[in-house]
């Protein structure tokens, strides 16, 4: 017996969740940019977007995060750790690829050291994924063995009803169950006709790609030089990626005090691997692009058993020179055996 959330009950749900101490975040479009932001009512939500331009990752791993506040004294330096608020949050309307991204990154942040900044937020957040009703030319979840209705990373999965009146609910976790409990009186029991999933064609042969990348012979292949020729070396693909997680730690301050911050960094930047000596082991853009692909489809899998890509396609969608993971992996797929 499944339950249904009606669109016209959404405002009541938001109110109920808020009353229970949750902030509700959903896709919003503000200042010509779509991202996840706090909403007060369903009208604030932009649920019809195929995908927000910014990923949900931002809400767990912000682009800049203060870690430590310090004061420079005559004899010693006083410091104070800054931790994120213990705010309970509902993420409503997350796309399966973004939610998967969180799940993909969890092992990374909890591997040798449990990143409090990540997990404090993860533990206090409930992810309500909505399965996709549409896809565009850049979507490629199926190519990485996910799907438009993947429940990976989701506490609750909603499937849109055909007539658009609401969503059919699937619950996967205790956290999801608890969230729905708050609004149980607002939900209907029953089965509806759900919207058919969009066709997302497989664009590359992941098995072949992984095999090719795993072959050490190919590391120095001319392939990398050719494929990355037009890469201009910006960080937009990494910063808009739901799984890219590299960061840098910087102290910012003046004479008397300052803050140590954790900032996003990108393997696309020449500075990423620059040594103090001036030597740069990845001194060309092709080696940087190779690193990005290798990290996602070889090294990460080697360490954590999953590929670090959830198939959202943002890398291609926003690339100023129309590059992206899809093109590269397609090209590998098409290489002669």
């Amino acid at each position, binding site marked *: 017996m499944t339950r249904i959330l009606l669109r016209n009950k959404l405002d009541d749900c938001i109110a109920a969740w808020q009353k229970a101490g949750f902030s509700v975040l959903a896709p919003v479009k503000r200042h010509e940019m779509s991202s996840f932001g706090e909403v007060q009512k369903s009208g604030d939500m932009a649920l019809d977007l195929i995908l927000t331009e910014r990923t949900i990752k931002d809400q767990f791993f912000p682009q800049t995060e203060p870690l430590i506040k310090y004061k*420079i*004294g*005559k004899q010693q330096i006083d410091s104070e750790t800054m931790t994120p608020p213990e705010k309970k949050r509902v993420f409503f309307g997350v796309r399966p690829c973004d939610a998967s991204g969180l799940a993909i990154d969890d092992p990374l942040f909890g591997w040798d050291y449990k990143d409090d900044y990540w997990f404090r937020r993860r533990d206090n957040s409930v992810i309500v994924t909505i399965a996709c009703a549409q896809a565009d030319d850049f979507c490629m979840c199926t190519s990485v063995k996910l799907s438009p209705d993947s429940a990976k990373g989701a506490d609750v999965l909603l499937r849109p009803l055909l007539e658009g009146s609401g969503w059919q609910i699937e619950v996967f976790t205790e956290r999801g169950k608890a969230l729905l409990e708050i609004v149980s009186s607002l939900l209907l029991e029953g089965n509806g006709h759900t919207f058919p999933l969009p066709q997302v064609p497989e664009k590359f042969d992941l098995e072949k790609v992984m095999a090719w990348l795993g072959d050490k012979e190919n590391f120095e292949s001319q392939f990398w030089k050719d494929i990355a020729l037009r890469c201009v070396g910006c960080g937009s693909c990494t910063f808009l990626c739901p799984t890219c997680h590299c960061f840098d730690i910087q102290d910012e301050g*003046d*004479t*008397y005090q300052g803050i140590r911050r954790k900032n996003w960094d990108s393997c696309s930047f020449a500075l990423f691997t620059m040594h103090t000596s*001036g030597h740069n082991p990845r001194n060309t853009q092709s080696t940087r692009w190779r690193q990005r692909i290798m990290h996602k489809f070889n090294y990460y899998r080697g360490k954590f058993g999953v590929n670090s890509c959830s198939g959202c396609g943002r890398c291609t969608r926003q690339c100023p020179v129309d590059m992206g993971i899809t093109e590269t992996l397609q090209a590998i797929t098409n290489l002669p055996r």
Partner: protein
Amino acid sequence: MAKIGVFVCHCGENIASKVDTGNLVKALSDHPGVEICNEYKYFCSDPGQETVKRAIRENNLTGVVVAACSPRMHETTFRKACAEAGLNPYMLELANIREQCSWVHSDKDQATEKAIEITRSLVEKVKRNNELKPISVPVTRRALVIGGGIAGIQAALDIAGAGREVILVEREPSIGGHMSQLSETFPTLDCSQCILTPRMVEAIQHPNIKVLTYSEVEEVDGYIGNFKVKVRKKARYVDIDKCTGCGDCIQKCPVKKIPSEFECGLGNRTAIYTPFAQAVPNKPVIDKNRCTYFKNGKCKICQKTCQIENCIDFEMQDTYEEYEVGAIVVATGFQIQDTSVYGEYGYGKYKDVITGLSFERLASASGPTAGKILRPSDGKEPETVVFIQCAGSRDPSKGVKYCSKICCMYTAKHAMLYAHKHHGSNSKIFYMDIRAAGKGYDEFTRRAIEEDEAEYLRGRVSKVFEENGKLIVRGVDTLLGKPVEVAADMVVLATAIVPQPDAKEFAKRIGIGYDEYGFYNEAHLKLRPVETATAGIYLCGACQSPKDIPDSVAQASAAAAKVLGLFSREQLEREPVVAAVGESTCAGCWGCVYACPYNAIEQKEIRDRNGNLIKEVASVNPGLCQGCGTCVTFCRSNSIDLAGFTEKQIFAEVMAL
């Protein structure tokens, strides 16, 4: 780790009455990196300085901030103290809590707070100061003097007389300049040629002076102590090493009616000529534009006349010579203004309206009239001569704004010479003011009026026109408040002194500044009057501003003294506040090269070990850099920095505010 000493000076009561120095000391003692903080009544006094020195030694201080008066006052004092205590003198900053704090604020709390902030920010700056060493630049002890007029000759003789080599470059065929055209000179009335010619001869015969006439300075590269100069020796068509100066060729030249520049057109010369009889070197030059051979391909009479083989060479080309010099004296002189702008004075229309310089030639014993004052139109002696002063000077509408300085004196002299040469003469002088400041000058003009009966009329001339064979000068006598008309036989215009026509272009070529007219800028009008803003280049004579002979000569000797001062050492020590380029990040856009006011930034090639060009980068020549930092601000990639005011220092200073 930084160990900074902070020394708070009371300056008697000057600081202490308005700044709570106790609080200042307390605040700074609590500042990170401050090792010791003291206060004292007068840190600039000997015991005060001793305290600083002892503190440096005992605490191994790495930097010092003296919170006292303006760095313009005592920076040197405390730098010296630092150096004596073994600390690099550039590891010092002065916090100006007197001129810019205690003296200008009345509220003690606010003044104290400000003093604390100023001092703290300079502590942060000084933590990032670098040890600097004065820059040593080798000095080539040879001077270039540009211009062979009296100023250039004097400078050359003074420098050569002190035992240093001089290259004296003159663009005319002879040295001597304008002074050689003058008849007698005020206020002594000694003959110009008589006092100048011995100097000219001395210059050309001096073992330390190489005189290059008919030559021009084409390029100046390098910097103080190390200039490279390219001189173009224009083709003279006469080999001056072979020529004996016999003058036969001049006699035989068939082209005889060329108006002589030297004689202001009052006399003629030939196509092969020396500009004047006493020319130095007294060797002719062929005027290519007037020579029959160069025009028609036939003649060569001079060559046939010449007894010396290959002395006259029609195939001669311009040649270039390069010299290395350590200092440059610019003495390029002046021109007189083209007076045709004053149509109402009839210059150019009436032959007997002439310039003061032409009058000099008429009055000169070696001139076209052998010293007789005769009218150019008919060769008759004029009975009445009207002199119009400020015919161009002090006239912003048609002439120049400034005073040409010499005209009052030479006009008085002209009236006097005219009276001496022509008894019963009648001189009338229209003037605005009589400016006769100078030794013996006022006495001189008084003499012209009282003994030689020059009649001075205060007022301007509105018109000169011809009527019945006379030049009618219509003007106004402002003292009487009446219009006047004078029937004159000759009118002499005291034309304005202007820079050489190519003065600005030449200044750009050698890298010195000029004013709106084209007179060259001195580094400081009062305190550095013979130096230019470009180190190692000095000025003398009328290229800087209108000057008479005594001033030109005085300035020439002053410039020579500056040069000799520079040449007194083999190495030159310069303030190390200069820019330097980070070559690894320089993008080679050359913006700094354009921005540098001193042409101190050059392009440098970076090559790998095999000699292949990797890239071109900017490179600051520390000998030329004056330390303004304009390049630093321009550089987008932040690849240039200025010692003493580095990006790190300023950043720290601002971030501590």
